């Protein structure tokens, strides 16, 4: 079989079909619209059944912790009477050390059930350890493909730690230099091994996260007698937010869903020289913005992670703010966790100050910490790479140049991203699948995709090309 780049990429659809076990074509309309809920029904389990599968595999039922000292600090920084109670879901307690265990559990369960001998995933994040952990429990083989090093073979300490953890859990780790052609290597591995693609973006992956939203609703009702007024999700590929929001909806829990990403504006994600200039390898705008405006850029034909459908607000925080908040969690709450998972916490600390004191803001994840994956080595690595680290106003942070640790916690501010700009961009990207004039189904689909209304979508289309599409 021809293994050249172009030949392998041209076989992408057939490789994916046999590696995911889902016939995506049957959900397509042939135009912009596709049957998203139909795709999600490819998962033949209820949320309660999924929770049971997960509990059988050391996933879920993680503690809910009220951060009383952090709440007190937020109230000291807030206008009088403001400062919602800050609550965190300690997802680091899952088997693999992050919420990603939920995401992996159902995929690996399904792979085993369908008779695959192994699972593969392309990820440099916590998801690798999650897939490796679940594969270990099921006795399946596991390959994790990572973008890890720059051309000098200097690697992000955070990613190297994740490689170590995957190997510790019995997986084979394939490490690559920077570049989106990782996908080519990934496809070759799928073709060579015939393993299941435990993609982050299948319905199994997203349905596995629904239990998180479902659990939040149950636990907050038990503990506080109410649903949280806002839930903040660290946002990158969009699955975390999508699954959590869907789980909350399934529990009939009405709340505000807020996305939070680390602001890495200006750094190119596929740049070899900029790869080690960033101190966050996930949870950042470099993934968060493109995946919100074009969810189908993932490794499956149609992504089940569609965050813009569920997002009420999108904010960014700086690297320095997240590092500061990670230190705060350790120093005043006694909980030491990994920085990337605290992106939403930094945002929540700021947003809590806009809310009343009887309200609750919930941060829905934490991640494990340790060598490489910790404020200390990540800042040390940044300093070694010429990044200026100092105290000051976080608004002066320039990604790739400096990291500004807030000189006072009151300077931590979640900055709003204009959702309408993202919605317009989502409409524009969706139109690339249009074959001519749009049908009513296409319009309805775009309204759902953008969580907007008819007027907004029609106006956005008119601004692009009225004659062609309407």
């Amino acid at each position: 079989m021809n293994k050249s780049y172009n030949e392998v990429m041209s076989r992408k659809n057939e490789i994916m079909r046999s590696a995911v076990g889902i016939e995506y074509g049957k959900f397509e309309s042939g135009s912009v619209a596709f049957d998203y809920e139909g795709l999600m029904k490819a998962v033949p389990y209820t949320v309660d059944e999924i929770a049971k599968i997960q509990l059988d595999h050391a996933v879920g039922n993680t503690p809910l912790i009220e951060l009383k000292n952090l709440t007190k600090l937020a109230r000291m920084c807030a206008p009088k009477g403001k400062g919602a109670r800050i609550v965190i879901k300690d997802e680091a307690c899952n088997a693999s050390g992050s919420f990603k265990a939920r995401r992996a559990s159902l995929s690996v369960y399904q792979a085993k059930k369908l008779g695959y001998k192994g699972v593969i995933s392309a990820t440099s994040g916590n998801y690798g350890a999650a897939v490796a952990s679940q594969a270990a429990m099921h006795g399946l083989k596991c390959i994790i493909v990572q973008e890890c090093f720059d051309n000098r073979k200097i690697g992000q300490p955070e990613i190297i730690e994740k490689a170590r953890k995957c190997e510790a859990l019995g997986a084979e780790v394939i490490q690559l230099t920077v570049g989106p052609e990782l996908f080519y290597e990934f496809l070759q591995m799928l073709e060579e091994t015939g393993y299941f693609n435990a993609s982050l973006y299948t319905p199994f992956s997203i349905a596995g996260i629904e239990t998180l939203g479902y659990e939040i609703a149950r636990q907050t009702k038990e503990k506080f007698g109410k649903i949280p007024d806002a839930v903040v999700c660290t946002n990158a590929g969009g699955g975390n937010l999508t699954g959590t929001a869907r789980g909350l909806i399934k529990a009939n829990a009405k709340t505000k869903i807020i996305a939070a990403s680390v602001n890495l504006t200006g750094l190119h994600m596929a740049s070899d020289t900029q790869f080690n200039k960033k101190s966050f390898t996930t949870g950042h705008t470099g993934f968060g913005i493109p995946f919100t405006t074009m969810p189908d850029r993932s490794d499956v034909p149609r992504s089940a992670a569609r965050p813009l459908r569920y997002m009420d607000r999108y904010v960014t925080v700086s690297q320095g703010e997240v590092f500061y908040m990670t230190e705060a969690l350790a120093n005043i709450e006694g909980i030491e966790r990994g920085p990337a998972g605290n992106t939403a916490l930094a945002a929540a600390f700021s947003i809590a100050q806009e809310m009343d004191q009887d309200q609750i803001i919930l941060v829905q994840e934490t991640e494990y910490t340790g060598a490489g994956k910790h404020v200390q080595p990540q800042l040390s690595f940044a300093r070694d790479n010429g990044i200026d680290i100092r105290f000051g106003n976080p608004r002066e942070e320039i990604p790739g140049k400096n990291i500004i640790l807030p000189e006072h916690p009151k300077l931590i501010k979640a900055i709003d991203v204009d959702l309408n700009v993202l919605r317009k961009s989502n409409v524009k990207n969706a139109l690339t699948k249009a074959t001519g004039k749009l049908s009513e189904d296409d319009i309805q689909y775009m309204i759902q995709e953008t969580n907007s209304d008819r007027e907004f979508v029609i106006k956005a289309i008119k601004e692009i090309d009225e004659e062609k599409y309407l």
Partner: protein
Amino acid sequence: MVKKGSWVSVQCTVLDVGQRAPQVPDDTKKVPLIMWTKGYLTADAAIGDTVEIITRVGRKQTGVLIEVNPAFNHGFGNFIPELNQIGEQLRALLFTEDN
């Protein structure tokens, strides 16, 4: 000489300069896409030889032998004094006698 059966790391070039994908930025286009894999050496060899390994899942992989018993050396890096200051500041704000 590295003995057959040793746990090693091999390196290979997946895409040379000139074969990189069109969407890749210019600085990345100037360097090859390199891959590292670990496994058990299938025959005695020397560092720098092109060798075959059997990986953790049982795959065969060819590459240049670069390391024997490859170790993870990541840790907690150099001390960052600023981190102490964050802790001191927060404790001062929250846990003074006035509070």
